[in-house]
């Protein structure tokens, strides 16, 4: 415990000085602080903010590791150097060293930049405002690299992280006070600021953008392009299906498809979600109701197409006609529902509110996905929108409860 004592001494030395929050932060970050609640009849739980955050990070680790392998796998697959997976989840084509090397090379810098820049902003604000650094960025910093395309330039990520942490969180007063999910604020900023790096058929596969540039400069190379799954589905292509499709349903479920770094594997997201529910960190109400919302909206659209209210030439037909449950295994909706919508700060706080909040996230995600081809993945917009409405939902739930009790009181007294 040498380091802990040393940090504690440093802390005492700098107490009351300008840099004190920074030292305190390092101390709390690495160890449990020496000071805890002293007086009063408090219940001292072991699940402090740090443990909550670490639980979420643990549930994200499988997605991160899978994302690294997938980065390499999609790269080599697009180059035609390896065969597609043939042997289920544990195919040797996927879990190879070559894939991992590409993944480490591309994904680790994203993680480092996300944490480095984000924590730096938090430290600066802690020093300026003279308060403690909160652990709030720990989860955000892990989420951010998982929801961006693998080739996102690092400086763009850095700019977006600064924007997201400052405008999304610090202006509202820091961790616990933010209205919008900071990770999604960062994603939204990237999407609107640098759309060419965030959508299209090149960005999802490492090396494809670079290759396109070389070809444009006259190099004689084969073009690399990853299919954009949602884009292709919108055009009515048979991309995810059982027969003759580019990707089988198993591929999409297990995650052997191009996409943002960590959101492709529905299986691992499902496991992470179960872990969060089991440890009572994530709200099962939000997850379940969001899945229901997704399925119901999907069913409505399926109904519209099978009733023949829309012609096949319509640009909405492709995605409307997608079997309703397939919406959950393509795109980022599963990841959004499990790890973003359940953010305890920005979600609804009341149980009834959580049902409404979650349901509308699923519902609106599919609505945006189908009707707005400019935003192929609507889930981040849907969650941000519902983040804004969460306090309103809570307000009406609470008011409704008060009204009900008032009525009961009147009945009793009357």
């Amino acid at each position: 415990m040498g380091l802990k004592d040393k940090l504690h001494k440093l802390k005492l030395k700098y107490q009351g000085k300008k840099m004190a929050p920074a030292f305190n932060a390092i101390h709390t970050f690495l160890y449990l602080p020496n000071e805890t609640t002293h007086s009063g009849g408090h219940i001292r739980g072991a699940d402090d903010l740090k443990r909550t955050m670490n639980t979420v990070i643990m549930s994200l680790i499988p997605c991160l590791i899978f994302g690294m392998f997938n980065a390499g796998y999609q790269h080599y697959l697009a180059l035609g150097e390896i065969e597609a997976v043939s042997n289920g989840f544990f195919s040797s084509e996927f879990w190879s060293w070559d894939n991992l090397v590409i993944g480490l090379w591309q994904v680790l810098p994203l993680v480092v930049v996300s944490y480095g820049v984000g924590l730096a902003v938090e430290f600066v604000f802690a020093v300026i405002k003279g308060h403690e650094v909160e652990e709030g960025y720990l989860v955000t910093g892990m989420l951010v690299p998982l929801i961006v395309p693998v080739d996102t330039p690092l400086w763009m990520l850095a700019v977006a992280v600064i924007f997201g942490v400052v405008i999304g969180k610090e202006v509202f007063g820091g961790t616990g006070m933010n209205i919008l999910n900071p990770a999604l604020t960062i994603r939204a900023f990237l999407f609107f600021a640098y759309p060419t790096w965030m959508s299209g058929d090149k960005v999802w596969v490492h090396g494809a953008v670079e290759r396109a540039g070389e070809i444009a400069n006259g190099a004689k190379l084969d073009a690399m392009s990853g299919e954009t799954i949602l884009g292709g589905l919108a055009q009515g292509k048979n991309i995810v299906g059982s027969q003759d499709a580019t990707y089988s349903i198993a591929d999409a479920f297990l995650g052997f498809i191009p996409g943002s770094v960590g959101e492709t594997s529905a299986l691992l997201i499902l496991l992470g979600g179960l872990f969060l529910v089991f440890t009572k960190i994530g709200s099962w109400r939000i997850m379940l109701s969001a899945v229901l919302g997704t399925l119901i909206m999907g069913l409505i659209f399926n109904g519209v197409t099978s009733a023949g209210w829309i012609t096949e030439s319509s640009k909405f037909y492709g995605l409307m006609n997608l079997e309703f449950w397939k919406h959950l295994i393509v795109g980022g909706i599963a990841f959004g529902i499990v790890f973003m919508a359940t953010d305890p700060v920005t979600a609804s706080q009341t149980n009834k509110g959580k049902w409404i909040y979650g349901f509308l996230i699923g519902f609106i995600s599919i609505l945006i996905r189908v009707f707005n081809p400019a935003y192929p993945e609507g889930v981040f917009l849907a969650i941000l929108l519902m983040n804004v409405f969460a306090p309103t939902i809570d307000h009406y739930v609470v008011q409704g409860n008060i009204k009900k009790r008032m009525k009961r009181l009147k009945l009793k007294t009357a």
Partner: protein
Amino acid sequence: MAEVTTEEKVKVKEPKEPLFSKKNRKLLSDPLADNNPITIQVLGICSALAITAQLKPSIVMAISVIFVLGIGNVVISLMRNIIPSKIRIIVQLVVVAALVIVVDQVLKAFAYTLSKELSVFIGLIITNCIIMGRFEAFALGNGPWKSFLDGIGNAAGYGVLLIIVAFFRELLGSGTLFGIKVLGDPIEKTGLYALGYENNGFMVLAPMALITVGVIIWIQRSKNKALIEDH
């Protein structure tokens, strides 16, 4: 948002006051900083969001508003004793509308492309809250010279903010200033673009104007704590 202070409404009846007395200079300089119509009174936001993607239209807009508010304030101030108070809003509208039409026609005659770019927003100066606000709060209760200074000051405060916002939006959003490519050519990949820099498309969209104004308000209030309201 309380731009109407009682001091302003009191009629000043000092017989001999120099043209640029301390008080009068304050009328001119206050709106530029601590009583800025946009950042403090939060008026005229709509046009500030709409036309600040480029510097040139912002400057034209600023000049137009300075012209309309300066002259409008004088006209209203001169008529202040003969306007029946029940129909004063209509009279004010007529005055603004007349001035705005003049501006519009001048722009159409001498700067047609700019007038196209600004489209309805020149016409919408009529509804700019700052103008009606100054008529109501100041010109109706003060003499023409004071009203003139007040009008110019407030319009300039509005204009300065437009230009600051437009500077950042044009520089970061399009990489240009007044249409000149100061950061290099994004297609030829010269200057900063050779290093992999790219324009921030978000800056061109209206939400970013709101956020930029918000950041300016933030900076202003953290510099001058007196501006922070009590709760």
